[in-house]
């Protein structure tokens, strides 16, 4: 069906407009209290939250430290290709490392089904919930969902206290406008559909590793 063919658009809108002629009761303006307590120490809180949802959080102090942390993580991942976001920081890390695996950069196409691990950057980290904010710019959509292990490299100053700040930043920086995908990832892929028992790695990553680098 061509773009201009829109089904029963005018009929549905007409019914909605007729229905809304009977107004809903107006609500009195009230000042509602915040729904979460303020986050005081974002870095510490982020680490605590990660522990609660089985996310491996590694703190490093510089690029060399981050390189070592990625090498160590990849050392425990089964043999196979590694996919990396084509970003200057990650290029710099891969230049001097000891990893002996086939690499695929995001500029060469999306990660194939057999990808064991991916390494990407993040838009932000959310302290309140231990979440990683990603977008299509972070190596694409598949980078954070196709592999068995997703490694995220982020700077400590990327940590925002809560969801409100994270979403305000998405609006302010135009992230939602320039990306067809924006995703808040809180823990690895999981299911409790069998007898409410938690199992990690339902369809996507079994492991989510977040490397927080203190200095740029």
């Amino acid at each position, binding site marked *: *069906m061509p773009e201009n*063919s829109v*089904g*029963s658009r005018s*009929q*549905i*809108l007409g*019914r*909605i*407009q*007729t*229905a*809304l002629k009977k*107004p*809903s009761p107006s609500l009195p303006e009230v000042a*509602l*209290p*915040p*729904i*979460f307590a303020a986050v005081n120490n974002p870095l510490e809180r982020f680490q605590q939250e990660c522990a609660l*949802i089985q996310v491996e959080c590694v703190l490093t102090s510089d690029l060399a430290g981050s390189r070592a942390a990625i090498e160590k993580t990849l050392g425990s991942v089964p043999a196979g290709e590694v996919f990396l976001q084509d970003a200057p920081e990650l290029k710099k890390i891969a230049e001097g490392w000891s990893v002996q695996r086939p690499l695929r950069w*995001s500029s060469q196409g*999306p990660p194939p*089904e057999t990808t064991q691990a991916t390494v990407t950057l993040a838009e932000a980290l959310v302290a309140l*919930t231990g979440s990683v904010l990603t977008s*299509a*710019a972070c190596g*694409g*959509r*598949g980078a954070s*969902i*196709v592999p068995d292990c997703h490694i995220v490299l982020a700077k400590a100053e990327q940590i925002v206290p*809560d*969801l*409100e700040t*994270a*979403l305000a930043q998405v*609006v302010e920086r135009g992230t*939602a406008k320039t*990306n*067809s*995908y924006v*995703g*808040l990832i*809180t*823990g690895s*892929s*999981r*299911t409790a*559909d*069998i*007898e*409410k*028992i938690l*199992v990690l*790695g*339902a*369809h*996507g*990553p079994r492991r989510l590793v977040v490397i927080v680098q203190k200095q740029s």
Partner: protein
Amino acid sequence: MSAAAQDFLRRAAEKSADLLHRQTIRRGIDSYDAAVGRGRSRFSDWQAARERAFRIKQEAVSHLDQYLLRFEQNIQARGGHVFWAADAAEARNYVLDLAQRKQVKRIVKSKSMVTEEIHLNETLEKSGLEVWETDLGEYIVQLRNEPPYHIVTPAMHLTRTQIADLFQQKIGGVTSDDPPGLVAIARRKLRQAFFSADMGISGANFLVADAGMVALNTNEGNGRLCTTLPRIHVVMAGIEKVIPRLQDLATLWPVLATSGTGQHLTSYCTLIGGRRAAGEVDGPEEFHVVLLDNGRSELLADPEQREVLHCIRCGACLNACPIFRNVGGHAYGTTYQGPIGSVLTPHLRGLEFSHLSFASSLCGACTETCPVKINLHHHLLENRRDAIAAGARPWTERMAFRVWRWVMASAARFRFFGWLGKTGLRMVNALGLTGTALDPLRKWSKYRVPPELPAASFRQIWKESYAGK
């Protein structure tokens, strides 16, 4: 009594006497209750969170046309297609026609109750398309050829042993019934489907008007794969899913996750604005959103019931409901089960489902737990009133209430019939006829020991001990 009502009573009687079913549901809901308790305690003010969520949805629903138009405009600006479907048939035909025109063979689906509502899978499969449900619970019930048992946890009624037997029979290679092994079997099978599918169909948790994005939450990540790998992505959503602003998700995401599973946030809170944009690594070539009315605008036209459109399908009212806990999800015979289903179904499918308004003790647990503050048990009461006004109740019930009113309107008649009832019941019990066809209270006493009848009535006790003092 409608055929649907008779089926409901039969299934409810069967399920409430099924001990394995009772045990499975109790275990599931107990673990849910514990998780939700922990989840709510993470909020500094859960009631304020409910009030915020309620206000966001109220604003959206009471300006529904404006927010839908803004959403449509933003989706189209990114190159997406928006199709407005007045009813189930129009929505089904759009997806089928699209699939056929684009030579689609295999479809992967992320969990979506609205596609259950319009019976999309049957239509697609009849036309020779292969449809894979990819949420683990949905996949399990699809293999069993049955509808989801619960809005959020579709396979809640099954034990690991039953699932292991099912997988062995349908897939093979089952070595034990431990959940990680079963999940691994489904993962292997479903990844083949993900990587070879031509079309992904998802629902939507929210349609964000100002950003022009569809918010989709999944824990398993199946929603992510469905919207990343196939070349076409179709979103099916009810018109009531629209919300005004991206920032509203700072309230709605944690409120939905907490009420749905007790989590702080669902693992993948995903926003999709359209097809793969220029310069992006991956994503579909085409993006379609189907906005479905299917009775929702009629609900909107009733200011008394309008707030039912606030529902975010978290499933909390099902888990809280003493009726659901006893009869289970399949007894309802509806797409949406539990209190929200009992409120909604007579509007979506007609008065032959008005019996569901009576499948409630009116205890109000649903209303108390609802994260968007829908006054569920009051709506059940309103539906009862409407069903009676429409003559949808049996004449025996109407007669019974007429007689009851006549008896209650006079002290003498009340005294006489009270005496008659008591004496009659004493005789029935004394003759050992309790629970038989001659027992007027047989529906109650069939499964229960009848209570001891007091020697004196309240009126006698009052007269002898208190009157005039």
